[in-house]
């Protein structure tokens, strides 16, 4: 992609933030919602524009340089590669879905602002080409939610459980800070021009002995962010009690995965290879743990939360395995699970708003009042859990082949996970929508309205994306083909020198 006339990327980062600032001046909730939807759609339009101009390949494209931060030597340079294009589209899409289709009573002004600010920070994280700035955006992504939560916690004692969020995520960012400092030290000492620029770091390389410590720190931060067991406790709590959408956006933007693929794996290859059995073990355990806990839940929101935990584990295991199938599968799964699970959560929230609870023991028989709600819930559920014809089937199939192909027995947890997740979902569907209404709640459930047009549209869009992607996964896979081939192990031997010279993160000037 040639440098376009407009600084598209910078506009994408600034636009949601500007929108959030404008929201501060709007009083009427209806107008606030309209402003937010407009901003989110504009961001999506810009994202589609970037995609249209994007050419699959190695280097960063659509670069825009805004000078340097003096002192630390952080270069304000934006660019996209295959990884960030997909992540950017996903973030823009999910934000629009959440803002447009979320229940109105949950989308107050503060939540809307937090959503837009989170989007802005996530996009910034995907675009910057400098590790120091990545760290800034990594933390900035948490702040809107943190502010919102601490304000709530003061007013509403139950929300105090959300303090886990602060402990887990803010504290979980400290290891990344340490890792960045460790990475930047040699550069600062020698007075390099961009001590934390991704391409410069790649060109310099990291001596093997230091890689272990840096990877351990980075993995810790990522594990907190991806909600990998045992660092996952914030996610179900946030989804169940937290503000609408923010937690979902945070986990489904897959910033942790992005950090691994973009920074940790290319920059620390030796340490990654040495630690991959451990990482894979943690990933598989996390997948299984999430699946078992999701099965045991009675609150739909927590069920979705643990399903997300389980998916995170699958992705981590796929990355650790490092063959083309498992890498492609893990990357595909990040989209394949995010889109339908977000849609599923939208439906769950719609149920919650209508009935006052997401507790399955108090629901039941909802299909009578909301057949479309039931149908969409069902379709989104099977789309997120590897049903043939959906994108997650492709993702899980690739993961399975990648992981099982190398050592068959290891993948038993993977197989059990997919089996249990399917059972969990069907059970949740039946308890919520089929059968008779729960004892004593029939009168509430008899007044439930079916999904509103905008909710239906958003859920249907998630469905269509998941199924279309499942039938034609080719284009999506091609976008990140370069990352897959340069990071996978068979290719690494032949193309190592090549990857060292111009790895995935280097700007094509």
């Amino acid at each position, binding site marked *: 992609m040639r440098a376009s006339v407009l600084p598209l990327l910078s506009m994408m980062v600034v636009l949601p933030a500007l929108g959030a600032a404008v929201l501060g001046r709007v009083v009427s909730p209806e107008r606030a919602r309209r402003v937010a939807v407009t901003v989110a759609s504009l961001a999506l339009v810009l994202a589609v524009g970037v995609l249209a101009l994007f050419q699959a390949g190695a280097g960063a494209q659509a670069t825009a340089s805004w000078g340097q931060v003096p002192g630390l030597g952080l270069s304000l340079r934006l660019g996209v590669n295959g990884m960030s294009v997909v992540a950017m589209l996903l973030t823009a899409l999910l934000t629009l879905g959440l803002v447009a289709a979320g229940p109105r009573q949950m989308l107050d002004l503060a939540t809307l602002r937090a959503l837009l600010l989170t989007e802005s920070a996530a996009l910034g994280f995907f675009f910057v080409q400098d590790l120091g700035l990545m760290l800034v955006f990594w933390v900035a992504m948490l702040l809107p939610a943190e502010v919102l939560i601490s304000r709530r916690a003061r007013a509403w004692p139950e929300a105090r459980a959300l303090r*886990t969020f602060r402990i887990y995520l803010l504290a979980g960012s400290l290891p990344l800070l340490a890792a960045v400092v460790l990475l930047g030290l040699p550069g600062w000492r020698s007075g390099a021009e961009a001590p934390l620029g991704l391409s410069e770091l790649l060109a310099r390389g990291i001596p093997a002995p230091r890689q272990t410590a840096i990877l351990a720190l980075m993995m810790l931060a990522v594990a907190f962010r991806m909600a990998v067991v045992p660092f996952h*406790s914030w996610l179900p709590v946030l989804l169940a009690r937290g503000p609408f959408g923010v937690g979902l956006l945070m986990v489904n933007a897959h910033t942790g995965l992005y950090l691994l693929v973009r920074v940790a794996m290319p920059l620390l290859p030796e340490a990654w290879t040495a630690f991959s059995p451990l990482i894979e073990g943690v990933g598989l355990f996390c997948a299984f743990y999430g699946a078992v806990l999701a099965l045991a839940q009675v609150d739909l929101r927590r069920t979705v939360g643990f399903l997300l935990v389980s998916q995170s584990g699958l992705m981590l295991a796929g990355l650790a395995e490092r063959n083309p199938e498992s890498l492609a599968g893990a990357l595909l799964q990040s989209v394949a699970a995010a889109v339908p699970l977000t849609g599923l959560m939208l439906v769950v929230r719609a149920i919650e708003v209508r009935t006052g609870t997401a507790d399955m023991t108090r629901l039941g028989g909802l*299909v009578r009042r909301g057949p479309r709600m039931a149908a969409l819930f069902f379709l989104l559920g099977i789309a997120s859990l590897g*049903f043939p014809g959906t994108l997650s089937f492709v993702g899980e199939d690739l993961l399975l082949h990648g992981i099982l192909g190398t050592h068959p027995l290891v993948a038993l947890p993977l*197989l059990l996970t997919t089996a249990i997740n399917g059972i969990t979902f069907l059970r949740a569907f039946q308890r919520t929508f089929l059968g008779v209404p729960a004892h004593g709640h029939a009168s509430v459930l008899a007044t439930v309205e079916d999904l509103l047009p905008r909710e239906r549209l958003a859920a249907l869009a998630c469905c269509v994306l998941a199924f279309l992607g499942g039938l034609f996964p080719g284009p999506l896979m091609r976008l990140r083909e370069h990352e897959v081939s340069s990071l996978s192990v068979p290719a690494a031997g032949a193309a190592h020198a090549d990857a060292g010279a111009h790895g995935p993160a280097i700007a094509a000037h």
Partner: protein
Amino acid sequence: MQLSDVVVGGIATTVPFWPLLAFVGLGLVTLAHRAPSERTVAGCVLWSLSLSLIGSLATAAFMLSHHQDVLMVDVGPWFSTGTYTFEISFLVDRLSVTMMVLSSAISLLIGRFSVNYLHREPGFTRFFLLLALFATGMMLLVEAGSIDLLFVGWELVGLTSALLIGFFHERTTPVRAGLKAFTIYRLCDIGLLLAVVLLHHYAGSAEWVEALGEWAWPGPAVVMGVGPATVLGLCLVLAAMGKSAQLPFSSWLPRAMEGPTPSSALFYGALSVHAGLYLLLRAEPLLQRAPLASAVLVGVGLLTALHATLVWRVQTDVKSALAYAVLTQVGLMFAEVGMGWYRLALVHLVAHACLRCLQLLRAPSALREVQMRHAATQGVKPPSVAVAHHVMPEGLRRRFYRLALERFALDVLHEQWALRPLLRLGAWVDKAERVWVGVVSGWIPRAAETRRLESEHRAATEPSDGKSTGAV
């Protein structure tokens, strides 16, 4: 490949496609707009099923007239990365062409039957949508040229089966029965998934002709070590046991009779229950190389047949009795496959599917038929066919009677050994999680909250069904 091959290949490819088209079209209209009229729904689905029957018949006629035994149709890759490609290809040989004709014919017949049977039923559209989806899945399953594609069809069949069992969703028992079937399917699918990957691993390809050799069915044993063949064979046997409800997974089949009668006839009389058998027949070169897997098949099949024939005798409703009758025959077919009598098993399968389908369709009027027979014979007792009863010693007979009444307590065993420990583990860990979150955040749920949580846990750990006897 000659031109006629290409044409026939094209026709064979369209066979699963028509019902899918009907499903997608009707489904989108229903979801986005509103349910079309009964006439439209039934018309669309029946037309699509007729088209696929015509396609199957044309393919069969071509194969017969040209004395062709194997026809491979490559449609193209679905997705690929690195060295792995998911190819969509169809394999038409004697076995699959037989199954194609059988499946499409029975699907069409059942579809026609259901138009009247389900007239003015609230779930009319849903039933026909699921019927179309099932037909697609079944056709994919029998036509698949690779085990990957077979898995796609397999899953479609499993899901539609679970949903149709729970068709009358305003009652609790059908819904629960659906979940039960789905759970067992899902767990046994692990075997198939393992087999998918292991076949890639050992044979280097998931295509049937490449992995097992391009022979007219039934082909000779595959060229592969006994060890890998045994592992693969056992995986496939596990998958087939789940789908065909063999012991110890047979408890879901009688409960599955909660679904509407046409779907029971289609799934558990005719097609779905034989899908496992089809898988085994398809992988027959592997089984020839794996004596252990074959021996397991014989054992499982005979035990199932014995179990089912005992339980069948004490059932009080016609559909449960028929379900166990199905199990008896399918068990025998398993044993036949294990013994290596593949042609016999296929003939048995086709005959059984047709007969049982008819019996299940007539099941609602069984009582009336018995009365008519009584009237016709004027109360003369028919000769008793149950001889075994009189041979057995009294104590043993009583014990078997008791076991049969309890349906060998399979439900209870499943609950006790699989589901409940898993749920209990989940609930226990979940409780620990909540405590942990409470400790970390410094906010311990108040008493009311705790009580609510406890009731939640009770609900989660409660067995879904404690009863082991009684009508389904």
